[in-house]
Structure formats: C-alpha cells, structure tokens
C-alpha cells in the first residue's frame, strides 16, 4: 500500500513538473467571439512553449523560405523585443473607425492584439518570450545560419 502511494506520488510529481515546464513560457490566449445570430465562440488557451515546438512540423522548404525572409530583420526584431520586454506597459497602436477598433498593447510580458468590429471580436495574447523563441527557431532554419 505504501509502495502504491509512493508510485502515485511519483507520477503526480512528474505530471506537475511536466505541466510546470510546459507552462514556463506563459500561455497563448486566443478568443474569437462572433456577433452574428448563430454566434461562434472560439477560445484557445495553449502553453506558449508548444509554438516553437510546433515549428518543427512546418515543411522544411517553407520554413527555409520564411527563415531567409526573416534573417535580415533579426537584429531589428531582437532589439524591438528586448526593448518591449524592458519597457513598461504601453498601448503601441490604437486605430478607431466607426464600428471598428484595433488595439495593440504590451501588457505585462505579453503582446496583446484586440480587434473589435461589427461582426466579431478577436483577442490574441502572446508572451514575448514565446514570440522570441518562435522567431529564433524559424530564423535558425535558414540554410546559412551557423549560430
């Protein structure tokens, strides 16, 4: 009985450690709400760490193409992300039109995009660390990257 308890404790500990590791880069939140009569509601809350892992499943040719396009901009992206991470929370862009609004903010350690229009509202929140890891992962797929 004691042995069974120890095994259960070990499994629970491993699961907890695994969940902790997976969630260590924060969570990506996507919330889409349609405003039509047959409204659809999509809500996804996924560990941000899965996104860089997911890049491994992108076909090699497409990943290389994306990496080649991304590579010249990597110093700029790195500088921007570093400054965003170090800076305080800020509304970077706010666009308003009748019935529409687009808001891009830095909130905590995440970049948040909120789009509201007459048909739907979209909310996307992605941790800066996850954005950085994903972009670095894609850029590393460039054939001439020798980092």
């Amino acid at each position: 009985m004691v042995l069974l308890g120890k095994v259960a404790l070990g499994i629970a500990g491993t699961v907890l450690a695994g969940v902790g590791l997976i969630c260590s880069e924060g969570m990506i939140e996507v919330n889409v709400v349609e405003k039509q009569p047959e409204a659809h509601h999509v809500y996804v809350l996924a560990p941000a760490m899965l996104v860089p892992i997911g890049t491994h499943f992108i076909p090699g040719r497409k990943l290389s193409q994306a990496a080649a396009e991304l590579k010249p901009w990597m110093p700029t992206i790195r500088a921007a992300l570093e400054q965003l991470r170090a800076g305080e929370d800020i509304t970077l862009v706010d666009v308003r039109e009748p019935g529409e609004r687009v808001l891009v903010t830095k909130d905590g350690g995440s970049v948040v995009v909120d789009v509201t229009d007459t048909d739907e509202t979209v909310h996307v929140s992605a941790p800066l660390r996850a954005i950085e890891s994903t972009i670095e992962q894609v850029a590393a797929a460039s054939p001439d990257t020798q980092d």
Partner: protein
Amino acid sequence: MQKAMRAIGVCCVLALTMSNLAATAKAAPATTERYIHVKVDDSTKGESVNVNLPLSMAAAILPTVNKGTLHNGHVTIGEADFNGVDVRALLDAIRTAPDNEFVTVKEKDQDVRVAKSNGNLIVHVLDKSKDGQKVDVTIPMKVVDALFSTVKDNELDVAAAIQALSDAGDAVLVTVQDATEHVRIWIDSHSASE
C-alpha cells in the same frame, strides 16, 4: 526582559526595512522614459490612429535597420533632394544667428515662414486653397544639429536626432491640419497619448 527584547527586535526589523527602502529609492533609475506620439484624426470619417513608441525603442531599433536608404541609423539623401543647396552651411548660419524670421513668403495661395525662436527651428506653411493645409513644424535646433552631425554630406543621422529628441523637453514637433484631417506628432514622458 522579554518585552524589552521584543521591542529591540521590532526596532531592528523596522530599521532594516527603512534602510532597504532607502537603498531601493537610491537604486531607482533617475531617467524617465520619453515617448513619441503620432495621432491622426479624420473628423469627417470618424477615424483616428494613435501610435505611441518609447524613444529608447526607436533609438535601439533604428541602427539595426539596413534597408533602402536607411543604414545604421543614417538616411542617405540624393543630391536632388537638396536642390543644390548647401544645407549644412544654411543650418550653421541659422544656428549662429539670433532669433529671427529668416524666410517669409506671402503668395496668393500660400504663405511660408521659416524662423528661429527660443532654440527651435520653426517652419510654418499655410496653403490658402479650398482644401488648404496648415503645417507647423517645430524642431529643437539641437535635433537639427544632430540630424546633420554625420561626416558625409548626403546623409542625415536619424539615430542621433532621436537621441537629441530624448534629451529635449516635451514638445509638439509637427501639426498638420487640413479640411478633414488633423495630424499631430509630439514628444512627452507619458506612455499614453490621451
């Protein structure tokens, strides 16, 4: 005896807390972040665009961009853009001159005024046509100097200008007003534009 020991303990904790607070206050950065704001309002369409960017971010990003005419924070300008005018000599003359109105052009459909006032270069353009625009540009002379601080004659040092802007005080740099739109670019230490 126990009460006395407790009182001494409490005093020690308080003293430690206060000294920690003081150390934190001393360690806090003295410089405040400066922001550049761009606001475009179209009253007829009910549209507005607000962009807020920390100047430190702009200063960090600009030198990393190497595309087109922008390289390492410098913008290359062709000879045609200066129309054969020695802009450096012109600016040097303006910088050393006392506050004054240097150019005043009054035409039937346009007024142009270039002046120096309180360490700022001021350009004012008024288009008198039906949908005429009113443009006001106020740039601190230090920023203008930084812009032309490069060795090469056909380059503008945008990165140095941004650095100079972050050292300047709160200022409205550009306003453009026409029949429908209002554009405003300004610098301050508030992260939000409103």
